[in-house]
């Protein structure tokens, strides 16, 4: 597989949210608006890039039996970095995303890529894989956030273009589940065609 395919697979064919159905918790929780979704996506992408790079560098040093705990520590370190950086520089976004920043540590996408890809491939491929998967995740969050924001408040990125109140339920929890369900159904259809 060449690097371009390696990079683009994360967007549609192997999209972590829409095809593999991983990391649903942050997906539902942080997509009440497009900006929040993108913020969460970028934070996760950073962690994924960092953990994939370090784990693929250390794959020959880590004993096979303790690899999962070792991966988790590497991931938790990067999550702590993101947590502190966001607290310092984007406090309002940090406040909105709340406990979902520390919870990146249990995001199955990050550990999944470490186990399935970074621990078996070269550093460069792992960086490309991390970037592709991370940006695929970010794109899916952005789309879901945009859909929910448009339906829920008639606005996009805070810019209101449909008068009226919108369908409030799409900003709330039930709308998150329903919108994600239909988005996955659409992607299923596209991938099968």
């Amino acid at each position, binding site marked *: 597989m060449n690097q371009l395919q390696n990079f683009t697979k994360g967007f549609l064919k192997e999209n972590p949210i829409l095809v593999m159905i991983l990391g*649903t918790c942050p997906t539902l929780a942080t997509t009440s608006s497009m900006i929040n979704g993108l913020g969460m996506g970028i934070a996760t992408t950073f962690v994924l890039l960092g953990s994939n790079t370090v784990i693929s560098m250390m794959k020959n040093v880590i004993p096979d039996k303790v690899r999962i705990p070792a991966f988790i520590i590497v991931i*938790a370190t990067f999550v702590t970095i993101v947590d502190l950086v966001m607290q310092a520089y984007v406090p309002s976004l940090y406040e909105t995303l709340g*406990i979902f920043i520390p*919870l990146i*540590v249990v995001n*199955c996408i990050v*550990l999944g890529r470490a186990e399935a890809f970074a621990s078996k491939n070269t550093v460069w491929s792992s960086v490309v894989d991390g970037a592709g998967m991370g940006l695929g995740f970010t794109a899916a969050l952005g789309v879901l956030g945009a859909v929910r924001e448009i339906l829920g408040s008639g606005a996009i990125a805070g810019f209101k273009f449909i008068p009226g109140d919108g369908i409030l339920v799409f900003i709330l*929890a039930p709308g998150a*589940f329903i919108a994600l369900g239909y988005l996955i159904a659409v992607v299923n259809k596209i991938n*099968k065609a």
Partner: protein
Amino acid sequence: MEYIILIISAIFVNNIVLAQYLGVCPFLGVSNKVSTSIGMSGAVTFVMVLATMVTYLIYTYVLVPLGLGFMQTIAYILVIAALVQMVEIILKKISQPLYQALGIFLPLITTNCAVLGVAILVIKKDYNLAEGIVYGAATAVGFGLAMVVLAGIREQLELADVPSGMKGAPIALVTAGILALAFMGFTGLV
């Protein structure tokens, strides 16, 4: 009285899955059958109460005195992973039937964000140890309730004629959405 409010709020009003979006992966993953979802909720209850207790003690008596509050995430995930492993070993030794029932679900719990989420929320909400344990237990019951209800609906859906694109996760998510809508009816109860 205070505890009753805490319990009702954690089970119905702020249901961990349907209102707070935590633990959605196992919620969708093992809600195919009622029996497996009961097993999973049992394991989650067990680990969540233990994890809340242990992480609270570690945060209050180890991390805070040493000024290591920023190590919270790393410390918690290690504690939970170790705890799950320990529970598995102990259960295997002392109660074979319980191990048979919960065994396969235990390793999955390490990456259940509801467990880590509750441990972090207890600190964020400034609960004391007793409140933390009650909150952990009630949250786990709420998780179990949501999962068993969804499993019951999904068992019926097996017989329905679902469009091909909607099969599997999409229809489960839409069902969960409608369930969440029903749970919104509890808003304002406490």
